[in-house]
């Protein structure tokens, strides 16, 4: 082999000249980050207040919930799974946590634990049906998405839960939402929680045995099994973690709006999917990773914030968001060709 091979870890694809290869390799690795930098420059020229701390904080706050849910999705992606039920789980957790306060006058600890328990149950059910019944994960979690959405709706009787709401028997609810709980959804706590989640997930996936096993399973399940890795155990873990993080997102959402709206979590599903998939290519990781997911969420958040500042109507926002997502995927998959 020539010196050429020694200097690069990834020999290029047979086709294409050297120059274009390097260019796409660069785009693949740094395209997302580059896009973010370009967006920041453009938006701050268009509107100098874009870079003020209050706005930066605004952006970080707005992406916190998406990021937390997307990190959960990232973990399910790392075992080559796909958890579509995360939006519904967030809705469910949202409803459970608020109802514990408002309907049952429980304290903060009980409220949060109940929501997490409900989510863990969903995660266990998901993984049981995937691991034991062998249902393809995307289809199963799609089915569970509807089921859990329905469960959340039934639980709340399709009503928004908020303090002093009218109960079915005509009385007013007496519970209140605790002060401590209301802090979770406010800056800086909401941002701190997001960073803690991202960092812990990143360390877990990259620096621990368990994370490595998950990537090995995602890379080749059969080889992982024959290497002696308890594949099913790790799949269960991945889906439970995914559900728990979705629930955490729902809980924080509850704290932020201080009530439980119908299907409040479902909006976050697609943004989370976008963030996690944009994150695949960040810094050339080539696989689902928590840091990349965070960068993906930042990209979406900056875009939304900047466009609002530039007075792009809210109803046109999805066009841009989808367009950027498609572009990021184009860069990722063009390289993989």
């Amino acid at each position, binding site marked *: 082999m020539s010196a050429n*091979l020694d200097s690069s870890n990834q020999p290029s694809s047979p086709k294409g000249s050297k120059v274009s290869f390097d260019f796409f390799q660069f785009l693949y690795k740094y395209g997302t980050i580059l896009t973010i930098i370009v967006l920041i420059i453009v938006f701050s020229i268009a509107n100098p207040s874009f870079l003020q701390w209050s706005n930066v904080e605004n952006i970080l706050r707005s992406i916190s919930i998406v990021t937390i849910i997307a990190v959960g999705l990232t973990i399910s992606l790392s075992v080559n799974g796909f958890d579509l039920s995360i939006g519904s789980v967030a809705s469910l957790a949202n409803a459970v946590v608020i109802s514990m306060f408002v309907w049952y006058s429980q304290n903060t600890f009980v409220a949060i634990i109940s929501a997490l328990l409900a989510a863990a149950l969903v995660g266990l059910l998901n993984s049981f049906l995937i691991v034991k019944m062998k249902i393809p994960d995307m289809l199963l979690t799609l089915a569970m998405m509807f089921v859990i959405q329905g469960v959340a709706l039934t639980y709340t009787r399709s009503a928004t839960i908020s303090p002093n709401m009218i109960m079915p028997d005509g009385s007013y609810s007496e519970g209140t939402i605790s002060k401590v709980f209301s802090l979770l959804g406010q800056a800086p706590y909401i941002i701190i929680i997001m960073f803690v989640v991202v960092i812990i997930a990143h360390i877990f996936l990259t620096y621990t045995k*368990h994370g490595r096993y998950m990537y*090995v399973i995602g890379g*080749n399940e059969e080889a992982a099994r*024959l*290497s*002696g890795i308890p594949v099913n155990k790790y799949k269960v873990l991945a889906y439970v973690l995914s559900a728990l993080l979705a629930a955490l997102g729902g809980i924080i959402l509850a704290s932020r709006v201080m009530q439980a709206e119908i299907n409040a979590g479902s909006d976050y599903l697609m943004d989370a999917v976008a963030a996690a998939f944009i994150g695949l290519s960040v810094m050339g990781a080539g696989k689902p990773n928590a840091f990349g997911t965070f960068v993906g969420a930042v990209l979406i958040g900056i875009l939304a914030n900047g466009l609002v500042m530039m007075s792009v109507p809210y109803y046109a926002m999805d066009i841009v968001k989808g367009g950027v997502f498609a572009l990021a995927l184009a860069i990722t998959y063009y390289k993989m060709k």
Partner: protein
Amino acid sequence: MTLAETALQMHNITIDFPGVRALDNAQFAMDTGRVHALIGANGAGKSTLMKVLSGAYSHYTGEILLDGQPVDIRSPQKSKGLGIQIVYQEVDTALIPYLTVGENIMLNHMVNEMGRKQLIRYSAIHQQAKKLLDRLNIQVSSRSLVSSLTLAEKQMVLIARAISTDCRFLILDEPTAPLSMTETERLFDIVRQLRDNNVGVIFISHRLQELFEICDDITVMRNGRFISQNNISEVTINDIVEKMLGKQLDEQFPVIDREIHQTIFEVEHLCDDEKVEDVTFHVHAGEVIGLAGLVGAGKTEICKALFGQANHVRGKVKLHGKPLNIRTPHQAVKSGLALVPEERRKEGILVDENVRTNLTAANLGSFVRVLSFLDFKKEKEASHKVVKDLDVKTPSIETKLAYLSGGNQQKIAIGKWLIADADVYIFDEPTKGVDVGSKKDIFTLILELAKRGKAIIYASSELAEIIGITDRTYLIYDGKVVKEVETRKTTEEELLFYSTGGRDS
């Protein structure tokens, strides 16, 4: 089909990939109506040369002549238009599983020759497909689904597709690798028939013996260069191997002095639900035992049953005299077993992960500090050591396995179990798709393990290997052990006798 012969010549074909010159002034020449073997070690460039011929690359230099007329082949369409068809080794990539045999055979026709017609006449499709199947004497209904076929049948469907249009040259890339002996015979019948119909068949294979059975001429390549072309009757296997390696082949099977100790691994009355029936054997420490049998005899099933990878396994398995209860591969590894599976790409390695991750996947537990945090330094050191010990040709331990050759991938698949340090090593067809040079490295490795007191189970359908490497051999036929022999006292003929169902009278 015309009966006039066509001559194919490829002159000075050179092709560069970043960092590698894959072909260096390669030559190839043959006529229709002949079967021509093209061989070389892994990475010699034979597949690349054939890809050039079939139009897969457009950036080569050199000349291709048909009947002395230069032709410019830069796309698969062009190549097919000139009557050059190729059947790749991975048959599943070329077939559409949920369509019928007939539709698959007539795919080219449906795609390219429908013209303005919009409706498909299935009766005509099946009629034509049936004609092709009959011509090749293939016993498959044109109306059955491709997904229900065996691998050998799929291959035949692809050959039928190749000759559904004008076919002057047919390239078969390692067609016999996945086939059993009877299936191989069937394939050879078809190849002979094609030859008699004035088709030029280019035959790539690692199994040297069979070339002598089927081929008329042979071209040897090495390091992207043309080495020799001969009539096959003029050469011997040793000549060919020498040319492939560029050096005299010293004894293919290394000899390593070792001692055989007490029995450490015992298997009694092993059964599974499907294939394995009442298998009993034992292995001593430091011993290599063979599980010999034809493809489909049940060797893989026995290996998997031992490793907890089969349903409803019954029977007793003892290691060091202690009974084991293995229900999953996880338990097998914990008990001290290691399996190098037959389907390397599918079951043994992670092609998208780097060398380091692959090597430590089976024993990551010994590369962790507190709280399961990985010790990257230790991991790297261990990986470097294995790469060096096994002489794995890789630019770095961070290189993805997808970029390594088959032989080197196999070394990694074995290497990960060296790190795991098991007591019993099970090898299932470890030399499949591996070139001659790497084979010897793998044999050395296996014998070194035995020398360290490990028990080795070597399952293979290559009887020469069984003879060359094992101490004792159990002959497997239809999921059962039919005979135990001491390898020193047996011959390939005897092994073949028992593995084809022969019994002591």
